[in-house]
């Protein structure tokens, strides 16, 4: 009964949606407002403005960098939220330590199978390398901090499944853990504030052009970083830094969320 | 002539500070009494100090702050406000003395005296309000601060009474707020400094609606029938509270509000043109007679007094509704006349209840011998209500009748006479019972109420006589009322 009612309701709701779809600007046309207004400006100026060939990267890290700043905060929020919901005071004395995991924990973290375990171990360095590549090459190819970070995080999860909880957690040193978890927002804030102090606006990238700068820019363009020669290398560096921060932070957060869920 | 002066705000502030001090240090009886008496006396002094100025036509004003842009939280002492303020601060002093004696065996005295002071603070605020919003502010506050007094006994009956009181008065308050909003929307101002802020240009329909709304709102506290239901129920409160509720603060706030609406918001001229007050006058007449009639059948002394209050309040409404100078004077003066007479009666009721535990009129037989002074005071008040010359009530009836004739409405004179008869019918039997119906075989010895109860009672009774005998003497209430009337009628 309820389901029928809901279905009927949704069908009714669907009608205006479909009418609206018919009225939307034609799909795929280059004449649409979506394409001719802001995005046209981006496509035209992004490379020189922001410094990466991948315009998506330009947008997320530069034009709309503040969004991404918020976005990494969202993941951090998710981490804090998961921790705040799941952490329990099981061992009152050892606050924050999983030093005495329950036997059930041991059970669940037994290696799955020798084949899987072996393959994961074998692939781990390659996966990590690939993740790093995705992170660092995000400015020129599809990819970037989030994507790479996700791969790294997935790797951490795979390792946890294979190695067990305790072993895998060694990937993230206890002392460094909170720093790494906060890495992404922190990177943004540091770079943003640097921009604020040195250039004049939060998240504004410096456009230092001098002898040293152009020399290094040439070097970078030679090894495949920003395409245009006159571009500021500092800018490229900062993009890179941001990507890196996002990647590491993202991976740390994903891994931590998984560990927490598993432990509790 | 307007003079900026701190005294208009000082008067309400004094009781406010007093309330604060009582809440802080009131656990010791000494400080509690000390603060109450001190503040009451000081306040009376402050208010009286403005009397000469007011009589000379000086208006004291004080603007505290802009409440909202365009509407100030301001105080303004004109003759009408002054009249109400004097009555309430005089009676506060007397009631405080009385309450100190009366409340001795009760619990939660800190709360009682604290809210008592707050209650008077808001009453003076109402009296001195510069605009309708300030008035409403204090009017609503009055509702809130009387609530703990009404339910003081904390019995189920008290809670019931409190609930009823709140429901009635808050709904009334909502009507006033609505009326205030509408007034501001129509007139663009809320000031009470002019004899009328609305004009015929605002549209008859709006004006009628506005009048009904405001009168309905204030009518709740003024206990116009059929809005009087809360008042007899609120008898559950301790006697000083009943006295305060019924004689001074609450009901008079309602009546005062109606006077303000008629004279300051609409203005006499406009109301004459609108011809709106006729039905109000009839309603008042109806209330006078019906309430008196109901009072006849009340056996509980305080309930009989309550219905008497309902009836008497409508004298004020009637006086205001007649829209003639004489009637207006009667209405204003009746604020004082009714207050002193009725508070005397409540004091008597309280004294009898404390002393003998009797609340039912049937049991009063022969009590005149036991408590001669108390019953003497009661007799004075009763005669005043009946309208015997030389007592305060006569003044009201005299001017009211004159006003009715002035308005060409002689039938209200008939109402007046009928009311006097009804008053006699329900008060005089009590006197008769007290003095002449002693059950045979009982020995009587004078066993009066304690002095703290007796003195205020007797003072009030004496004052009823003073008001009745010296009405035309300068500085007496009538002269103040005359000042107010001159302003409203522009003569």
């Amino acid at each position, binding site marked *: 009964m309820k389901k029928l009612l809901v279905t009927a309701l949704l069908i009714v709701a669907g009608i205006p949606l479909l009418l*609206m779809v018919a009225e939307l600007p034609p799909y795929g046309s280059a004449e649409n407002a979506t394409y001719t207004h802001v995005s046209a400006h981006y496509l035209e100026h992004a490379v020189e403005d922001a410094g990466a060939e991948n315009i998506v990267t330009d947008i997320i890290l530069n034009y709309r960098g503040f969004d991404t700043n918020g976005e990494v905060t*969202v993941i951090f929020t998710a981490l804090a939220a998961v921790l705040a919901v799941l952490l329990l005071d099981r061992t009152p004395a050892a606050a924050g330590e999983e030093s005495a995991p329950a036997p059930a924990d041991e059970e669940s973290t037994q290696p799955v199978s020798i084949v899987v375990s072996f393959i994961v171990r074998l692939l781990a360095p390659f996966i990590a390398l690939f993740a790093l590549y995705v992170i660092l090459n995000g400015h020129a190819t599809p990819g970037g901090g989030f994507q790479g970070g996700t791969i790294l995080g997935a790797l951490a999860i795979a390792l946890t499944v294979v190695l067990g909880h305790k072993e895998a957690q060694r990937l993230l040193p206890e002392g460094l853990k909170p720093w790494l978890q906060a890495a992404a927002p922190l990177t943004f804030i540091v770079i943003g504030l640097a921009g604020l102090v040195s250039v004049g606006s939060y998240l504004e990238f410096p456009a230092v052009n001098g002898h040293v700068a152009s020399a290094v820019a040439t070097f970078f363009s030679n090894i495949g970083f920003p395409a245009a020669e006159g571009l500021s290398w500092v800018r490229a560096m900062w993009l890179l830094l941001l990507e890196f921060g996002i990647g590491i932070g993202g991976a740390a957060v994903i891994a931590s969320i998984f560990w927490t869920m598993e432990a509790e | 002539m307007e003079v900026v002066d701190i005294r208009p705000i000082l008067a309400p502030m004094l009781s406010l500070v007093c309330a604060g001090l009582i809440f802080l240090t009131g656990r010791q009886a000494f400080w509690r009494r000390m603060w109450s008496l001190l503040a009451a006396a000081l306040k009376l002094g402050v208010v009286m100090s403005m009397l000469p100025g007011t009589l000379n036509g000086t208006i004291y004003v004080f603007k505290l702050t802009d409440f909202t842009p365009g509407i100030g939280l301001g105080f303004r002492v004109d003759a009408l406000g002054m009249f109400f303020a004097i009555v309430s601060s005089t009676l506060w002093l007397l009631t405080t003395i009385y309450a100190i004696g009366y409340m001795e065996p009760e619990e939660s005295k800190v709360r009682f005296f604290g809210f008592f002071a707050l209650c008077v603070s808001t009453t003076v605020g109402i009296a001195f309000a510069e605009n309708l919003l300030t008035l409403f502010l204090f009017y609503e506050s009055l509702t809130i601060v009387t609530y703990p007094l009404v339910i003081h006994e904390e019995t189920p009956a008290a*809670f019931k009474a409190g609930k009823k009181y709140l429901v009635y008065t808050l709904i009334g308050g909502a009507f006033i707020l609505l009326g205030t909003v509408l007034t501001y929307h129509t007139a663009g101002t809320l000031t009470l400094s002019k004899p009328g802020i609305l004009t015929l240009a605002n549209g008859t329909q709006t004006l009628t609606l506005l009048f009904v709304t405001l009168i309905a709102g204030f009518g709740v506290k003024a206990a116009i029938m059929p809005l009087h239901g809360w008042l007899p129920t609120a008898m559950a409160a301790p006697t000083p509270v009943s006295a305060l509720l019924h004689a001074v603060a609450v009901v008079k706030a309602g009546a005062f509000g109606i006077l303000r609406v008629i004279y300051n918001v609409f203005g006499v001229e406009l109301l004459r043109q609108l011809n709106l007050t006729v039905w109000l006058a009839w309603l008042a007449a109806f209330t006078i007679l019906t309430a008196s009639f109901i009072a006849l059948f009340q056996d509980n002394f305080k309930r009989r007094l309550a219905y008497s209050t309902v009836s008497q309040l409508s004298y004020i409404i009637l006086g205001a509704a007649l829209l003639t100078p004489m009637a207006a004077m009667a209405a204003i003066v009746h604020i004082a006349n009714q207050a002193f007479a009725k508070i005397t009666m409540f004091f008597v009721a309280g004294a009898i209840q404390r002393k003998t535990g009797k609340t039912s009129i049937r049991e009063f037989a022969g009590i005149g011998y036991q408590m001669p002074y108390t019953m003497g005071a009661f007799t004075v008040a009763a005669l005043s209500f009946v309208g015997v010359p030389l007592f305060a009530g006569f003044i009201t009836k005299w001017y009211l009748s004159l006003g009715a004739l002035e308005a060409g409405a002689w039938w209200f004179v008939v109402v007046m006479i009928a009311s006097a008869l009804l008053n006699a019918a329900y008060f005089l039997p009590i006197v008769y019972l007290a003095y002449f119906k002693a059950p045979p075989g009982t020995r009587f010895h004078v066993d009066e109420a304690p002095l703290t109860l007796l003195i205020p009672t007797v003072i009030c009774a004496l004052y009823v006589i003073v008001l009745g005998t010296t009405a035309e003497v300068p500085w007496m209430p009538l002269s103040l009322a005359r000042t107010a009337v001159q302003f409203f009628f522009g003569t």
Partner: protein
Amino acid sequence: MVSWPHWLVTIIIVPLVGAVLTPVVGRGRPKVIPIWALGIMTATSLAALMLIIRVAQEGPFSYLVGGWARPYGIELHFDEFSASVGIICLVGWLALLFSYHYVAETIPARRVPYFYTLVLLNLTGMIGFVVTGDLFNLFVFLEILSLSAYALVAVSGEHIAEMAAFKYLVMGAVSSIVVLLSIGLLYSVTGSLNMADIASRLAGVEQRLPVMLALAGLAMSFMVKAALFPLHIWLPDAHSIAPSPVSAILSGLVVKVGVFGLLRVYQIFYGAGTYDLTGLNTALVWLGAISIVMGAFFAIFQEDIKMMLAYSTISNIGYIVMGLGLASQYSLIGATVHIFNHALIKGTLFLAAGAIIHKTGYRTLTDLRGVGKAMPVTCMAVSIGAISIVGIPPTAGFLCKWYIALGAFQAGKPAFGIALIFGALFIFIYYIRMVNSFYFQKPTHPEILEVGEAPLSMLIPILVLATLCLVMGILGRIPISFIEPAVIRMLGPFGG
């Protein structure tokens, strides 16, 4: 050092830094965490204060993040409405102070640092939400604050806390998705994400239906966030189960985000100038009126004090939304000022209720009888809050009633003004029950008379807020004259 427009980004960055570093700072030093959080909020509040003074003096201003010109980058826009950051900082600060003892004793120790992190993130999200001038950025901040709010509901780990949080999450997430969809629709026809730019481009848009649906979608989802009557079902559980400082934040601030979102939507569409908003206005007015009545109606049957307060939030949101829908100058002033005042009032009430529950361990009216004698100061604050929320002058709650009722007359819909004034009486019924039980009834549990007053860290926030309830009632002209130019500007050609 840095020039003043930078304060605008500072008020987002500072709490954000504070939030992400809380676990680092608090590592092994749990005592430091509350002080750290308070310090962060103090700094934020100071920056916010400078901005508010600035906007009062010079009118609205913008900050271009990354230095990109509008509409290419993200613009932060600080107008008079954004001065809500003031109340966010104030209530946030006081709630953090309140948490000092409260949290340590009610929340599992390992969660404590994350509790503070989440509170700070929540505040960051709200601050970002009210200052951003970019629609998508708005969505991002909306998510920050929503996620942290869901988690904060569950943080106490009490019996059904997780269930309440889940309910909240599902409704909140659906509404967030609809927000995103609506943003997408607006983007599809205007090609822009900047609010001011959208407003100017909307005027020339031919496709009406997508715009109207986007409007409907935004309105609907912000109504969910604001817990307007038929969409309120997540609110009572979430607000009553959450730890009390969180309830104060949720009820005082987070639901206002929905209202604020509506306000921004209105700004966009009034700015566009060519859209007839009568339908939406009518809907809002009716829903507001229904919320007032139904919120009050349900509250009457609640025994649990926090539940009661939660339902009364629905009523009060009804006021604000009704004020928005009436769309006249006075009603909008009333609505926006009530956003501020209601935060003060509900803050007082929830914090005081929290202190009472914390000290006595009881939470129903019957159990709490007589607590007024044991905790006089706290209960006085409750009374002030109650009087204020009913709208008895001279308290803060009165102003909104006055202005919205006046606005109803101004808009030519006096019926709603009447409904509002009389609807407020409903609310009184349940507050009088509370006051009766606290002060005037014999205790059900005699030992309740023995519990002392709450510790100072709880008492101070309660008292500050209660005092403000009174002060803002008398000094109501300050927020009103502050917000007035913005309202006039927003109504523009529609001006009432």
